[in-house]
């Protein structure tokens, strides 16, 4: 099967074609997460996906069979959107796409790759292990319905931050984050703003987020002083009172994130889990990303 396929840079296809093949590869997934062209374009821009280094597998006749994408930030790469049409799986196309992508990253002098795989997606997980990826930890996808009983805002000195002030904060060191939650993702995203809050006992922290038309998403928390769960609860109480009609979905929260108890207390529920995997030695640029860089 793999002898009969061609690997073509994704930049040779339109966004509409790429959205179509991506959706077709996931049509039988339990959580298919389809994307229209606008959503895919936003995804590409937010996550620094390089279409010239991403690949589409086709038949010799040009029929699209699968896709894989590569995000690049300095000396780091991220592998995403791997999918193969359901009726052509088990023919080595996924492996060929994956191997082709790793090869593409070679000339870019990138020796560190990150990815996430949905927990219990055994074939994909096995493939990544075979390519030398190792498990780093579990990530949670959480959401909160706008119908959840709102909590009164915690008494605090709360200050709303516009985009530029929010992005200065998010550029501070937040420790090692999965690709989707790294500072660059927020620098690239639209409609980003934030909340800075000080409690009566001196606890202090901030939350930066993206407000879409119907959805709050892309949360970045930092507790500067005090108990992270307490600070996060106060921040969330203000946020959800400010936007009572918006649904909330946050992706790839590390399972040991100290702000997590506040999310559960505020009515967030777990949708599903992913496993974060890395290959290579993490470069210094993975931590301490500054807006000015």
């Amino acid at each position, binding site marked *: 099967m793999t002898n009969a396929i061609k690997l073509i840079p994704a930049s040779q296809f339109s966004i509409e074609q790429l959205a179509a093949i991506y959706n077709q590869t996931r049509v039988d997934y339990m959580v298919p997460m389809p994307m229209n062209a606008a959503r895919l374009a936003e995804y590409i821009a937010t996550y620094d996906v390089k279409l010239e280094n991403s690949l589409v597998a086709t038949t010799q006749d040009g029929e699209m069979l699968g896709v894989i994408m590569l995000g690049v930030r300095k000396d780091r790469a991220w592998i995403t959107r791997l999918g193969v049409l359901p009726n052509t799986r088990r023919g080595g196309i996924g492996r060929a796409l994956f191997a082709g992508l790793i090869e593409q990253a070679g000339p870019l002098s990138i020796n560190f790759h990150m990815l996430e795989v949905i927990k219990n997606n055994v074939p994909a997980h096995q493939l990544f292990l075979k390519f030398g990826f190792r498990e780093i930890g579990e990530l949670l996808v959480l959401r909160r319905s706008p119908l959840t009983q709102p909590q009164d805002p915690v008494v605090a000195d709360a200050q709303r931050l516009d985009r530029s002030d929010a992005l200065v904060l998010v550029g501070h060191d937040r420790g090692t984050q999965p690709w989707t939650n790294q500072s660059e993702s927020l620098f690239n995203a639209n409609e980003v703003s934030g909340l800075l809050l000080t409690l009566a006992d001196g606890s202090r922290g901030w939350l930066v987020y993206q407000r879409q038309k119907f959805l709050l998403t892309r949360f970045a928390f930092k507790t500067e002083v005090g108990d992270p769960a307490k600070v996060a609860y106060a921040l969330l109480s203000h946020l959800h009172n400010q936007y009572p*009609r918006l649904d909330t979905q946050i992706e790839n929260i590390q399972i040991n994130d100290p702000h997590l108890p506040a999310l559960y207390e505020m009515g967030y529920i777990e949708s599903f889990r992913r496993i974060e995997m890395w290959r290579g030695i993490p470069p210094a640029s993975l931590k301490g990303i500054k807006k000015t860089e």
Partner: protein
Amino acid sequence: MTKILLIEDIPDNVELVRKALSRTGYEISHAADAETGLAMALAQLPDLILLDLGLPDYDGQTLAGWLRAEATLVDTPIVVLTAWPEEAAKEVVKSYGCNGYIIKPIIKINEFIAQVNSYIKTP
């Protein structure tokens, strides 16, 4: 005439639901994404909304929360169409103010029609 709004992005599934409900006499309209679905729901005030959870702009949960918050749609039955495990479907129904769920794939047409009928309020 009873109006059903189907919000579903996969053409084969749309065709299947249309075909299954063709003998009921219901008027079926269709939106392929969440934003169009919201606009059509507000304009048509359907008697029932059949909502796929995997939509290409905003997902079905986000749309359900938004539909439920609209004063003119607050009593409109919303039934989720999903391939998720039953427990997860129940959680969505509970959290997002929906009225029920129908598990895909739709295989038994008569059963599907009976499920749809059970959510339509008789005047």
